[in-house]
C-alpha cells in the first residue's frame, strides 16, 4: 500500500524547466545491432524499468540527445500506463516521527502538506532529487543572474561580454548556447574542468557541451579561470558594466565614497586577467537536496566534503539515522558520487529496484530473487550476466551479482544486482544463506586509469592478453571469491577506492573492445580455471563417450558427467564434433585400433584421461591480432 506525493501537477516537473536549453545529455541509443533487450538497456540512459515494452524511451524520441519535453511526456505516460498512485499538487512541507512500537521501524513518519493535511506511513522513500539551486553570496552577487531564470534566447546576449560562474554541464550548456553571439565568455570556478571522457563519470563535462574548450584553447577570446568565488566581489559602474574585484579590497574601502574609490585588481596589477568589464554574470552552480522539511528528530544530515549537497545515507540507501527512511533517485548519489551512475536515471533505476528487493525481504518475507543452478552452469551463468546485464554495467563498482555456493558444492544460488556496500549484511538483507563461500561479480575500470588529469588515450592503454587481465583499464568484469562472507569490520578496513575487501582469490576477465566477453579461449577458459581452482574441481564439459569411459575406469565422475551423463542426459555429440575433438587430441579414437586378442596392444597408449591432460595441441594465440593495443 503506497502513495506518491508530487508537488507539481504532473510527474517530472524538474524536466519541464531543466535543462534550460532543453537538450538532455543522456544518450538515447536506438541501435546497437543486438536484439537482447537487457543488453540494450546498457545503452539506453533514459528509460525507467518496467515490464512494459511500450515504455522504452526510444519510442518517445529519435534524437541521440533528446529534448527534455520528451522526458516529461515519457514520465507522464509511465505514471499513467502503469497506473502509479500519484497524488499531485501535494507539497510536503514537514516530515516528523511518531514513536510507536507497532510500526515496522518503531516509528511512523508523519508528513504534512501545504494544506496542513497529515499523512502517516511506515516506510518513507525520499526521491525529491536535488532541486535547490546553489548560490554564493559575495558583495555584488545581486548583479548575478541564475541559471534557472536566465534568458535562453541567444539574441539577448548579442555583442555582450559574459562571465559564467561554475564549471559543470549547466555552465557549459549555457555558454554553448550563446557562444556565437557574445564578445567573449569567461568562466570561473574553484576547480579545474573535469572531462567526462577522462573521468568516466557521466556527470562531468560532456563532449556535447564543450565548445568553449575549443574557443579557449584556440584563443578565440573565450576563457577559463580557476578561483574561489568566495573571494570575489562584483562592482557595477555607472555605465552598468560589471567589474570583478576582490572581496578584501572592499573591506578597506571608505564606505561613503562611490565606485571610483574601490580598488580594482588592475590598479595594482595592470595585466590582471579579468580586468575587462562584463555585461552579465550568470551563476550555474548546480543544485542541492532540500533538507529544510525534515524535523530535527530525523537527523537528515548533509554529506561531507563534495557530497554536502546530498543527504547522508548507508550503502543500503537507508538514512544513517532514521530507520525506514530511504533516499532514492538523484538524491542518493552520495553512495557513488563522481564514480558511478547512481545520480542518473540509467543508474538509479537499478539501485531503486535493489531497495525494493531489500524492503520486500525486510517487511514482507520475500527473499531476494534467486535462481539455483547446478555447479556445471557456474561459468555459463557468469558469462551470460557479464555480457548482457545492464545493472552491473551501469552501476559498476556499486551493484554486484552474488553467487552463493551450496554446502556440498554441487549447486549454487545466483542473486542479481545486490549493493556491494552492504555485502557483510547479505544474509540478513536478502534472506539467503552463504554457508560455503561466495563469488561477487562486479564491473570495474582500471584503478589508475580515470581522472580529470589523466591521459586516457595513451598508447598501449588496452590489455589484450588474458594473463594480464588484472591490468585492464576499460570497464571489465571482476570476480571476487570469498570463502566466508566478509564481516562488517573487513568491509570497513577495505582500501580506499576498492569496492570490496581483499578476497581469497580474484579474477579479471580481460577488457574487450566490443564489450563481448564470450571468446572461448580468452574469456571463458581463464574464468573456468579460476572457478575450478576456487572450488577445487574440474568443470570441463565431456562428451558422453568420455563420461562412459570415466564411469567404468574411475570411482568418481567429474561434475559435468555426474550431473548430465549419469542422469541419462549425456552429450552424445555429432560425428563431426567427435572428429574435431579427436583431431585436437582431446578424445581418443578407439575405432582406429585393430584389436585381435593375440596382437600386442597398441603402443601409443595411455588412458584417455592422460590424453586429456597431456596431448593438447597448442593453439598459440595470434598475439598481434588479439591485441587491441594500437588502434
Amino acid at each position: 500500500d503506497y502513495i506518491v506525493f508530487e508537488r507539481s501537477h504532473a510527474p517530472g516537473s524538474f524536466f519541464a524547466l531543466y535543462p534550460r536549453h532543453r537538450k538532455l545529455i543522456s544518450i538515447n541509443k536506438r541501435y546497437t545491432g543486438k536484439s537482447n533487450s537487457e543488453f540494450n538497456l546498457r545503452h539506453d540512459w533514459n528509460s525507467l524499468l518496467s515490464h512494459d515494452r511500450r515504455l522504452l524511451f526510444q519510442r518517445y524520441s529519435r534524437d541521440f540527445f533528446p529534448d527534455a519535453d520528451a522526458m516529461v511526456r515519457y514520465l507522464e505516460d509511465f505514471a499513467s500506463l502503469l497506473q502509479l498512485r500519484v497524488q499531485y499538487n501535494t507539497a510536503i512541507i514537514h516530515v516528523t516521527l511518531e514513536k510507536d512500537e507497532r510500526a515496522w521501524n518503531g516509528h511512523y513518519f508523519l508528513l504534512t502538506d501545504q494544506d496542513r493535511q497529515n499523512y502517516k506511513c511506515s516506510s518513507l522513500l525520499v526521491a525529491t532529487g536535488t532541486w535547490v539551486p546553489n548560490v554564493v553570496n559575495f558583495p555584488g552577487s545581486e548583479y548575478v543572474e541564475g541559471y534557472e531564470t536566465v534568458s535562453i534566447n541567444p539574441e539577448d546576449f548579442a555583442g555582450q561580454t559574459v562571465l559564467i560562474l561554475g564549471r559543470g554541464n549547466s555552465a557549459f550548456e549555457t555558454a554553448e548556447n550563446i557562444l556565437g553571439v557574445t564578445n567573449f565568455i569567461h568562466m570561473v570556478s574553484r576547480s579545474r574542468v573535469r572531462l567526462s571522457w577522462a573521468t568516466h563519470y557521466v556527470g562531468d563535462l560532456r563532449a556535447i557541451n564543450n565548445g568553449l574548450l575549443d574557443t579557449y584553447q584556440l584563443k578565440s577570446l573565450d576563457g577559463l579561470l580557476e578561483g574561489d568565488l568566495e573571494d570575489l566581489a562584483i562592482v557595477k559602474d555607472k555605465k552598468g558594466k560589471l567589474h570583478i574585484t576582490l572581496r578584501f579590497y572592499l573591506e578597506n574601502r571608505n564606505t561613503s565614497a562611490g565606485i571610483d574609490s574601490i580598488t580594482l585588481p588592475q590598479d595594482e596589477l595592470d595585466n590582471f586577467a579579468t580586468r575587462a568589464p562584463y555585461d552579465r554574470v550568470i551563476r550555474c552552480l548546480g543544485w542541492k537536496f532540500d533538507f529544510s522539511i525534515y524535523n530535527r528528530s530525523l537527523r537528515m544530515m548533509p554529506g561531507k566534503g563534495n557530497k554536502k549537497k546530498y543527504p547522508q545515507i548507508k550503502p543500503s540507501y537507508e538514512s544513517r539515522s532514521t530507520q525506514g527512511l530511504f533516499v532514492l533517485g538523484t538524491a542518493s548519489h552520495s553512495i557513488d558520487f563522481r564514480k558511478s551512475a547512481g545520480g542518473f536515471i540509467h543508474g538509479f533505476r537499478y539501485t531503486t529496484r535493489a531497495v525494493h528487493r531489500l524492503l520486500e525481504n525486510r517487511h514482507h518475507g520475500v527473499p531476494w530473487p534467486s535462481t539455483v543452478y547446478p555447479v556445471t552452469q557456474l561459468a555459463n551463468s557468469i558469462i551470460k550476466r557479464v555480457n548482457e546485464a545492464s545493472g552491473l554495467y551501469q552501476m559498476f563498482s556499486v551493484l554486484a551479482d552474488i553467487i552463493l555456493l551450496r554446502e556440498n558444492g554441487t549447486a549454487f544460488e545466483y542473486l542479481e544486482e545486490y549493493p556491494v556496500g552492504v555485502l557483510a549484511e547479505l544474509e540478513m538483507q536478502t534472506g539467503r544463506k552463504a554457508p560455503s563461500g561466495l563469488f561477487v561479480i562486479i564491473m570495474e575500470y582500471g584503478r589508475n586509469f580515470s581522472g580529470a588529469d589523466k591521459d586516457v588515450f595513451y598508447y598501449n592503454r588496452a590489455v589484450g592478453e588474458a594473463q594480464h587481465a588484472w591490468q585492464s583499464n576499460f570497464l571489465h568484469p571482476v570476480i571476487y571469491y570469498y570463502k566466508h562472507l566478509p564481516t562488517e569490520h573487513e568491509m570497513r578496513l577495505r582500501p580506499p577506492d576498492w569496492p570490496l575487501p581483499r578476497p581469497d582469490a580474484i579474477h579479471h576477465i580481460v577488457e574487450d573492445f566490443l564489450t563481448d566477453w564470450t571468446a572461448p579461449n580468452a574469456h571463458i577458459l581463464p574464468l573456468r580455471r579460476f572457478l575450478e581452482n576456487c572450488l577445487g574441481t574440474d568443470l570441463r564439459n565431456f562428451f558422453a563417450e568420455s563420461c562412459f569411459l570415466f564411469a567404468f575406469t574411475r570411482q568418481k565422475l567429474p561434475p559435468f558427467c555426474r550431473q548430465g551423463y549419469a542422469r541419462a542426459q549425456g552429450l552424445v555429440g555429432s560425428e563431426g564434433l567427435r572428429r574435431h575433438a579427436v583431431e585436437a587430441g582431446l578424445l581418443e579414437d578407439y575405432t582406429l585400433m585393430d584389436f585381435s586378442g593375440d596382437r600386442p596392444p597398441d603402443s601409443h597408449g595411455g588412458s584417455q584421461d592422460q590424453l586429456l591432460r597431456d596431448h593438447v595441441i597448442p593453439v598459440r594465440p595470434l598475439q598481434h591480432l588479439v591485441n587491441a593495443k594500437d588502434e
Partner: protein
Amino acid sequence: ELSPQEYFRSLQAGKASLAYFNRNVSPGPQPFLEQIEDSAEALQDYGISVVKVNCPDKDVSRYCAKENALRKAYLFRGNLLIREFPTDALFDVNSIIANVLFALLFNEVKYVETLADLQNVENTLKGRSNMVFAYVPATGTAEHRAVMEAAFVYGTVHQFVLTTEATLLKDAGNDEPDVSSARLLFCHCQRATDLAQPCRRTAMEQALTKLNIHRHLKLMEAPLVTEVAEDPEKVSTVHLQLGLPLVFILSQKETYEADRRTAEFVAWQLLGKAGVALLSRDLVDLNVLLRSNIALKTPDEGAAIKYLVLEDADEIITLVEDKNKVKQIQEDEEEEEEDEDEKENNNQDVQDDQVVEAVSRDKKRELRLDQVLALTEETFDSALLETSRTVVLFYASWEAVSLAVLRSYIEVADRLKGVEGVLLSRVNCWDWPGVCTKENVTQFPTVKIYEKRERSVTYDGMWGTEELSSFITLSRVSCPLKLATIDEAEGYLRGDFPSELSSYRHASLLGVFSTATSEARKAFEEAGNILSGHVTMGVYFEDDALALSHKYEVSPPALLLARSGGRSVESITVSKQSAQDMVQMIRYELLDIFPEITVQNLPRYLQLGKPFLILFSDGDIDQVEGEEMLKLAKGTPQQVFVACWLNLKKTPVGHGVLKTYFATTPLLPVLVWVNLHAGGQIFKFPSEQPITETNVLSWLEKLKAGLEIPSSTLSEEDWKPPLPAYDFLQMMETAMPELPLLHTSHPHGDMPPRHLPKSPGGDTTAQEELSQENKAEKVGSPGRDLRGTAPRLAAREKQGKKHSKL
C-alpha cells in the same frame, strides 16, 4: 683489583697484562675505567688480564707516584713494561683491544708508512709465505681491531702488514680508493716466482669484520681448483660451507688439460666469490646432457644442481657474480629443454575442454540452420499456435554445449523432415533473453515440446540425434495409448504400433485394469505422462479386461510387457499405487536382463548402484556364452549385479576401459567383474575356463570369499582442477607491494580515507580535491573571518600572478 704489591707479585713471565693505577681520592677519569672494564673479557680471550691497581694513599712506588701515571695504562709482558698508553688512546673497547694487540703483535703485524717499506716486506715474502695487507683510516677503530684479532690467530701463518696511509692503497691496485673505508688484500706471495712482479692480490669485498676476515682467509687457503671424482650432489667444499656457490667444470679425458687451464683461470677470477671444482666425466656417471659443460651448486639447502651449457669462461663469472642472471639463464635453458613438454603440459591458455575445442574447430562450417525455424520474442507465441506440436531448442550462441546440441538438433530436423504436425524451432537466448526467462529456461541447452500453448514437456534424455528424434516421435502419440478392443490390445503386444512409431520400436507396455482398479489406472496414466517420449505405453480397461488378464495369468491391475524381440510377453502384478512408484517400477522393468551395454544406455544401469559383470567381446558374442550368461543373469536372485556384455565394434571406447583395467588388451572375449560402487576392484574371469553358468558362479563365490586377487583397482581420485588459474592476487602483490588491499589488517584502514597514504590504486585527484574542498569549506563557511582571506589572497598574488588564476 689488586694492590701494587699484589699485582707485581702476580706477574708471570710471558703473560701479558694491562694495568691501570688508581688512587682512591680522585674521582677522575671514570668513563675510561668503564671501557677498560668492558674490554676485560675480550682481552681475557687473548690471554691478557686486566688489572686495576689500587694505590694506597701514601704510596710512592714507581707507578703510583708518577705525576701523570693516573692518565695512563700500562701493558706488561711478565714484568716487562711493553707500552704505556695514554688513556685518550683507549677511548672505547675497540681501541683498547686494537692497541693492546697491536703492541703485543709487533712482529706479526708490520706497520708500514711508505711504498718502499711495503715492497720490501713483499719481496722478502715471495716464495715463502703469503701476506695480508690491511689499510685502516686510523688505528683504534673497529676495523683495526678486526685486523689485529685476525692477526692474533693467523699471524704465524701469514705476514700481516698494516698501514694508515691511503697512498699505499692506490698502488695496491685501487685507482681511486675510498680512503674513508678500510680495506684488506690477500697477497699470494707464496706462489710468486718472478721476483720482479708484485704478488697477485685478492681484495676482500666485504666490510672488515672479524668474521669476514676469517672467512676470506679460509677461502684464500682453500685449494684453487678442487679435483673431484664423485657425484656433485655429494661434493662439499669450504666454499659451500661458507655459503658460497661451487662451480663444476665438467671435463673429459680428451679435454682435460684445457679444462684444467680454464678452471684455474676461472678460479682466479672467482677467488673469494665461489669455489671451482674440476669434475672428470669419465670417472663419474652423470645423468645429464652431454653438451652440459658447467654445473652450479648453490649452498641453499635442497637446491638442485643446475647443469648449464656455457660458451665462454666469462659467462661463468657473470653467472656467479650476478645471481639474477643465474636464474634467467637457467630459466632460458629450462624453457628450451622443456619447451615441448610445456606446450603440452602446462599451458593454462590452451583449451583442454573437448566440447569447447570441438565446437570452436567447427565454427567455420556453416550450419544448415534453415531446417530449424528461428523464433524471436515477437514470433514465439504465434509460432506455437500454428502447429500442433512445436519443439523448441533454447540455446545460447556463445555456449559450447548448446552449440554441440544444436548440431545434433539439425540432424534431428533432417530426419524428421516431412513429418506432419511437428515444427522444429530454436530460440537463441543470447538474442531473446525475455522469451527464455518467460519460459523458465535457466540452463542451456533446453528442449521443450509445446502442444499449442496448453501443455509443454521438457526433454530430459540424452543429447543425441537418435534419442531426441525418438523422443519427439514417441511423444506425438498419447502415452498411455487407449486401446479400445481386446484385439487392438493383443495387436499392441505383438507390435502393431501406430505407423508413426514403427521406426522407433521399443519395448511396449500394456496396462490392464478392471473397473475396480481405477485408482491404479489413474496412477498408470500419470506415469505415462511422465514417461511420455521415452516409453511406449498402452492401457486397456474395457469390461473384458479380465479375459486379457486370464490369458497372461495375472489379475488386474497388471502390466504386460512385450520386449522389442517380441518373443514373449511378461506379466507384472501392480502393487504400487502412486504415479512416482509406478514410474520407478516401469523404468526398472524395462531394463534388459542381459543387455548389451552402450554409451547411451549405461546411465540407466549405472543408476541401479550395483556391481557390473561385463563380457567384453570383439563383435557379437558367442551364442553359447550368451546363453550361459543369460541363464546366470536370470538365475541370480534379486539381481545383485548387472550382467551385461559390450560389443567393442559398436562401442570402441570399451578398448579404453580394458586398457585401464589390464594395461594390455587381454584375449577376447573377456569376462570382468567391476565393483563400481564399492571399492572399485576389477577381477578378470580366468581365460582358460570356458564361460559357463557354473564356472562363473563358482568364480563369483570365490570373489565373494575374497579368494581372488583384483587385476586392478579404479582410482578414487577426485576431479581436481586440471591446471592452475592466473593468480592475479599475487601478480598485484608483486607489482604493487604497497597496495593496501593486500594487507587485510592494514593499520591505517580505520582512519578516514584522506589520512591514508596515497596508494597507487587510490584516486589521488579525488583525495586532493577532497582536502582542497575541505580547506575551502573551512575558510568559506558562514561567519568566517574575512581577515583570514585577504592575506591568503595577497600571498597568492605575490607568488603566483598567473593569469589563468584570479
